[in-house]
Structures are given as structure tokens and as C-alpha cells.
């Protein structure tokens, strides 16, 4: 092993938030020209660690050493001046401003109070070229594709003289093709001696791109290993703390008659760009129908159409033979739909309201929950108590606001709400996202119970392993189209990956 030049060292970093230890004595170092992956589940403490590195937070304990000299970042500005460039998962670009304006934003040029945007634009274009990237500085960021926006973010960071690039979940929103472009860009940058911290919870990508891998779990650093012949299982084990096999125990499925049937469903956005194109499939009783695909390929729209939050511009959607297009979300819920939304906090719960109030959100208006517009709280309390015990939501009382519950318990509350009455159809999206392994298994068990009980399950996820092991059939979506419907036992993950990238098998 030849000697490495260490550019960055984070020593014994501890960050305590009221109630949580987000980072616990973490040591992390970065070498010149390497890609160092930070692997861990959501909530493992990756973002906090990077928050500290980028000056958003100050560590409770520990120090940062940059090229041998200890530094202290009190603000994002300090970090930037020290050559650290963050590219956040949710891009930090101002949609209404142009590319050039976004890149120039906040660059300190005491000598020049004027923007001189044209001059700047030329510089930017030239600069981007040197890294083989094309940018139109005049364009408003709002009109760019996700991939382009990410490129702007990277140029923005480099233009500020970043030597260390931090990419937070950069692939979450990219298509496989875009991912490959990103990866080649990263390689090119590291060849020019830039150092990259690659934050992800996707094992394969980490293995593909990084030189070294540090695994975080529950705020602690599990291990830092060279990326030479490490196996997925090994990493997964580190991530979740014990060896997990990626196959869920389940009985062979015995599909009954069709519950959910989509025929030629299409949807266009305001500009008339297609969001869903001729979607056809059926989900049967006692079957788990998985939907794979990179985020933003129409899964959200698909779910919104089925739940009635949006109405499709063409085609038909039937639940047990009844057309649902044009029906209101409530009418559809009343047809026996259970809905586990992608973002439980944004769409599933009302964080500032308490457990019982969240529990009745679908039924509050009908007897026995309420009679003649008046809610009968005694019944609601009783009913809520029973069910949150059944679904083992850990809480001191049903009067506590759900914002105080852990992510797992919040999701269990949603399960309790959606599954306590026998639904005919369960439409779930990212049902296990951001949960710890225990909770994930719990969710899986509950959904399998439903399957056994004959419920038809539509299960949308971006986690291929999960889908492969969990679903009876998998539809792969790309750009709003179903590229194909396969049985997990008949295909490999790679084949599905190809379909996710748009090639029909």
C-alpha cells in the first residue's frame, strides 16, 4: 500500500440533539483523490455528520482537521471557504433564478459589488467545459431536469473552489443512465485529485463507486473497510447490525379474482407532458404486486390515480369491478382501499395532533365514530386503544401528539389505521423507508398477513431486493410506462435494473 495524503479528518465527532445522540464519537477520514462512501440507513446519522462538516451544525464534541490544520465551521460559509462542497439530496437551488445566478449566489467578491452576469456566465460555461459539462447559464433552474439540476449543483460547488465534494444520496432521484453519467463524472473528478464523500444507503452503488466504505448505524461508526471484495451481505450486516437474509418467509401465493384492474391509464401534466402512459395491470386477491422503478418515474402519479387524489386523463381504473375514475378519494376509501402513502409525515399523519385523532382520520365522519356530525370520543378512545395495542404502537397514552413518536411507531400507527378493518385493496408506497430493521420486518409481516387474508396488495418501492423477495409479481416502471411485469423467481435483479433503465426485456 503506497502512502495516502489525508485531506480531511473528523475526530471523535459527537452530536447530541435533545433526546437523541445523532453521532457518537465518530472518526472519519478522507484521502486525496478517493471516493469514500458513507453507508447507512436513513437516520443512521449520515446527514448529521455531513451537517457538521458543512457548518450547519456544530459538534457537541470532537474536532475537524483539514489538511493537517484543525478547523472550526460556524456556518456554511466557513465550510465553503475551506473547500468543502455539499450537494444535498434536496437540491439547494432557487428555482426562479437562472443557472448563472444560482452559481454566483453567495460567492464573495468584495472588489466587485456588481454581478456582471454576462461575464460570470462566460466564466461558468468555460469552467464547466473543463469538466466536460454543458450548461445553459441563461436558463431558469425550474425548467431543468433533475439530472441537469444535480450537475448545476456540482458545478456550483466546484466553482466555489471545492476540493472535497460531498454527495448526499445523489442517485435517489436519477435513472440508471443518469447514475452512470454521474459515476463517470465522479471518476473524472477523483482523477483530478478531488476527493468525494458519497453518502448512500444503496449497497450496490457504494460497492461500484467507492474506494473505501464507512458504515454508520444508530449514530455509531460500525467499520471503515477498503472496497476490495466486500460482499453485499457483509455490508448489509454491518448496516443493520446483524446478518439478514434478503428473503422473507412467505407461503406460496394463491391469487384469487382480480381486485384492482387498470386499463390504458394515461395522465398528462399541465404542459401536456405524459406522466403515465397506457398503464395496464391487474392485482388479485391474496397477491402482492410490486412496482419497481427509480423515484419519479410515475409511481407517485400511479398511486394518486388509484387513490383518487388525481384523476387520470384516459383509461379506466376498477376496484372489484367498480370504476373509480371520477370518484372522490373518500368514495374510493369506502370501497375498501387502504392507503400507506410514500411520505408518512407529509401525507399520512397530522404530526401536531394526537394519536386517537390521527387514528380516526378516515372514519371520523361515519357511525359509530360519529353520530349526526358529532364525534363520539368515548368510542374513538376505546377503538383506538384496542387497535394500537393490536399493532403494538409504543406510546404512553393515545393523547400524545404523533410528532413525539419514533418513525417506526408512526408507521405502525398508519398500519393500525389502514389495516384494522379488512381492506380489499392495500396500496402502499415506500412502506419501509427510513425504518430500522425491526420495524421493517414488522411491516412486512403485517402486509403478508393481509395477503394471507386475501387482500390484494399493491406495493411500490425503489428497493429492488425488498421487492424481489417480497412480491409475487413485479411491474417495472420507466417514464410513466410499465416496461414489463415479471415474476421475481424468473428474473435477476440485473434484468430488472435494465428495465428500470428503459430497455424492454
Amino acid at each position, binding site marked *: 500500500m503506497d502512502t495516502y495524503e489525508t485531506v480531511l479528518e473528523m475526530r471523535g465527532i459527537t452530536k447530541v*440533539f435533545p433526546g437523541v445522540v445523532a453521532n457518537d464519537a465518530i472518526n472519519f477520514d478522507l484521502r486525496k483523490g478517493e471516493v469514500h462512501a458513507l453507508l447507512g440507513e436513513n437516520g443512521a446519522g449520515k*446527514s448529521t455528520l455531513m451537517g457538521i462538516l458543512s457548518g450547519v451544525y456544530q459538534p457537541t464534541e470532537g474536532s475537524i482537521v483539514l489538511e493537517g490544520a484543525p478547523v472550526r465551521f460556524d456556518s456554511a460559509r466557513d465550510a465553503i471557504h475551506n473547500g468543502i462542497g455539499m450537494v444535498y439530496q434536496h437540491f439547494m437551488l432557487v428555482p426562479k433564478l437562472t443557472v448563472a445566478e444560482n452559481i454566483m449566489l453567495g460567492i464573495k467578491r468584495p472588489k466587485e459589488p456588481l454581478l456582471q452576469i454576462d461575464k460570470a456566465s462566460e466564466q461558468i460555461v468555460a469552467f464547466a467545459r473543463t469538466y466536460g459539462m454543458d450548461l445553459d447559464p441563461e436558463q431558469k433552474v425550474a425548467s431543468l431536469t433533475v439530472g441537469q439540476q444535480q450537475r448545476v449543483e456540482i458545478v456550483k460547488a466546484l466553482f466555489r473552489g471545492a476540493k472535497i465534494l460531498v454527495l448526499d444520496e445523489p442517485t435517489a432521484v436519477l435513472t440508471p443512465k443518469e447514475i452512470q453519467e454521474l459515476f463517470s463524472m465522479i471518476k473524472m473528478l477523483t482523477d483530478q485529485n478531488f476527493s468525494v464523500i458519497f453518502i448512500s444507503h444503496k449497497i450496490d452503488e457504494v460497492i461500484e463507486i467507492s474506494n473505501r466504505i464507512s458504515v454508520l448505524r444508530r449514530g455509531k461508526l460500525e467499520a471503515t473497510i477498503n472496497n476490495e471484495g466486500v460482499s453485499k451481505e457483509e455490508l448489509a450486516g454491518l448496516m443493520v447490525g446483524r446478518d439478514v437474509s434478503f428473503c422473507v418467509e412467505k407461503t406460496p401465493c394463491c391469487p384469487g379474482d382480480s381486485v384492482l384492474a387498470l386499463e390504458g391509464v394515461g395522465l398528462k401534466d399541465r404542459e401536456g407532458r405524459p406522466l403515465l402512459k397506457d398503464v395496464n395491470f391487474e392485482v388479485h386477491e391474496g397477491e402482492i404486486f410490486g412496482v419497481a422503478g427509480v423515484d419519479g418515474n410515475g409511481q407517485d402519479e400511479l398511486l394518486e390515480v388509484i387513490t383518487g387524489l388525481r384523476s387520470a386523463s384516459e383509461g379506466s381504473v376498477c376496484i372489484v369491478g367498480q370504476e373509480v375514475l371520477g370518484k372522490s378519494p373518500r368514495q374510493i376509501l369506502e370501497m375498501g382501499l387502504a392507503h400507506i402513502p410514500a411520505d408518512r*409525515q407529509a*401525507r399520512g399523519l*397530522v404530526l401536531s395532533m394526537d394519536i386517537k385523532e390521527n387514528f380516526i382520520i378516515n372514519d*371520523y365522519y361515519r357511525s359509530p365514530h360519529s353520530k349526526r356530525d358529532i*364525534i363520539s370520543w368515548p368510542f374513538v378512545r376505546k377503538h383506538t386503544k384496542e387497535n394500537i395495542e393490536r399493532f403494538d404502537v409504543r406510546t404512553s397514552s393515545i393523547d400524545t401528539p404523533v410528532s413525539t413518536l419514533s418513525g417506526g411507531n408512526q408507521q405502525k400507527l398508519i398500519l393500525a389505521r389502514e389495516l384494522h378493518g379488512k381492506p380489499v385493496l392495500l396500496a402502499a408506497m415506500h412502506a419501509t423507508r427510513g425504518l430500522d430493521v425491526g420495524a421493517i420486518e414488522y411491516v412486512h409481516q403485517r402486509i403478508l398477513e393481509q395477503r394471507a387474508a386475501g387482500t390484494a396488495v399493491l406495493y411500490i418501492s425503489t428497493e429492488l431486493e425488498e421487492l424481489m423477495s417480497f412480491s409475487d409479481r413485479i411491474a417495472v416502471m420507466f417514464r410513466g410506462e410499465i416496461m414489463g411485469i415479471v415474476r421475481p423467481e424468473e428474473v435477476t435483479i440485473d434484468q430488472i435494473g435494465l428495465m428500470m433503465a428503459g430497455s424492454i426485456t
Partner: protein
Amino acid sequence: MNRRLNTILVQCVSITVAFALGAVVIKMIGISPLFAYGALLNGSFGSINAIGETLVKMTPLILTGLSYAFAARAGLINIGAEGQLYVGGILATLVGSNFAGLPMIIHVPFAVAAAFAGGAVWGGLVGLLKVKFGANEIITTVMLNYIAIYLVSFLVTGPMKAPPGTMPESRPIVDSAQLVRILPGTRLHIGIFIALLALLFYYFFIFKMRQGYEMRVVGNNMESARAAGMRPQRTMVLAMLLAGGMGGLAGGVEILGIQGRLLQSFSPGYGFDGIAVALVGVNNPVGIVLGALLFGFLRAGGNRMQLIAQVPVSVIYVVQGLVITFVIIGQNLHVFQKVGVNRPFRRKTGDGPAPEVL
């Protein structure tokens, strides 16, 4: 529980600070603060009549406070209570100054209902503009306040002017529509019960009825509300209707119970005080009563301060303004002590009523 106690304490401190500063101002104009505040207390609680006056002032304040609170529950900011109050006044007058000879048992409820309806229209309009055209409710309500005030001024100098037609005032409210005075020697009238009923209704509606539950859900997280099959737009319009109605009621009781006829600028700013009332009372029924008590006390006692201690009205405005300011400051001091951040990175969710402005 402890936190609640704490907030109450903070409120008290804030209010004391305001009065302390007020004392300085009063001192500046050469009057003994103790004497002035003595008059303030005496004028608000010193005698049966004083207490009566405080209650009289509380009546519209409770209602305008409810007006703000109703909208706030659905995540809307209603600055329009003043305007709704004026329109309520117009309608109350139209009904109250006509239909002479109706039995009181019918005429009073009729007039009060009219006031409610008037305000509801003025408020509902805001709701409609919001959901149909996305017109920001804060500005529309501010604008509608002015429109309502000029409307009244036009009506009393024009169409509704009382014959023979020299004075800018409507015909008087006929006896059968006037709110009965209940405490001899004071102006305390049954309006206070209307206000308390409204308060009761607010509590019942928000916490016991499904529409109220819908309002709270919509106000806290519109997305979840839609996913659960609610109709946020309807709910918001309903909230503004009720908010407006409450404002209208305030105008109604003021006209039917105190003024006896429609006059130009008959409200001394009850609508705006109502915002502060709801703010001090954090939209909670009991809190609103206390808030109304505070400002009723200031208004009733303020008159006395001017009457006995010769404290100019302008100084009383200062004290009122200071009270509101320091209550706001008090409620936000917690930003200095980092509490309640139990998730390191809060993601942007629809959580919590964060009504955007403009």
C-alpha cells in the same frame, strides 16, 4: 402541563413589562402612574358599573377573537374581523330598524342572525377568493376592512340616512330589536350571553364536531386531509364563513346593544383587538375569554384613566400596543432556548399551520 403553566407565567411577565413601560410614558406626561393605573383598575373593576363596562367591552372582543381563532384553526390568518364587524352592523341595523312591531322574541334573534349572515358573507368572500383564485387572505381581509368602513360611511350619509336627513346616522333600532340591559345602572346587555354562547359553540364545534375536526386537520396538514378524503377547499370556505359570522355578530351586538343605530366608524377597533385577544389566548376558548378580559379591562379602564387621571387617549393606545408587542415577544422567546427539536433534520412536511403570507 408544566409547560402550560410556564406559558401562562411568561404571558403575565410580558404583560407586566408592557405596563411597566406604559408607566414610564405616563410619568413622562407628568401624571403619577400609580394614580393612573389606580383609575384603570377602578374604571374596570372598581364598581358594579365598572365591571359592567368591562363586560360590555368584552362582548365584541370575545366575538372578534373567535373570528380570528376560527380561521386560524383552518390555517388561515383573518385580519378582517373589523370589516366583518361593520358589515354585520349594517345588516343588524337593516333588520333592527325596520319590522317595528315584531315581538322581541322573534325580532332580536332575527337581527342577530342577520348580523351573523352579513359577516359570514364578508368572510366567506375571502374564503372563496382564496380557494378559487389563490388570493392571499391576509391582504384581501385588510382591503375588505377599508371597503366595509367606506361602505358604512356611504350608507349612513346616503341610502340609510335617517330622515329628516341632516345627520350621518341610520334610523334608530326599534325597541323590539334592542338587546335588553340586564344590570341596572350599567350598559351590560344580553349580548354578553350571545358572546358566551358563541364561545361555547366554538369549543363544541372545534373539538366535538366532525367539521371542526376537519378544520384542525386541514389547518395542520392539508395533504393528509386530502389523502383522508376531506375537501380542504370547502373546509377553508366554511372556516371563513364562521369566522366572518363571528365578526358580524360582534358588530350586531354592538349596534343592537350599545349604539342603537348605525354610525360612521362605530367600532373603536374591536376587530384588530380581536387578533390580539386570540393571540394572547392561543385560540383556546378559555384563553380567548382571558384575552378579551385583558383588552376589555384596558378599554373600560382606559376611559376612566382619561376621565379621572386625565391621561390622554394617545397614551392608552401606547399601552395597548405595548401589551400586544410584549405578548408576541413573550410567546417567541423560546427561540433562545433550543427545545423540541427531537428529530435532528426536520424535513419540510405540511406539518403545523404555517400560513404563508402574500
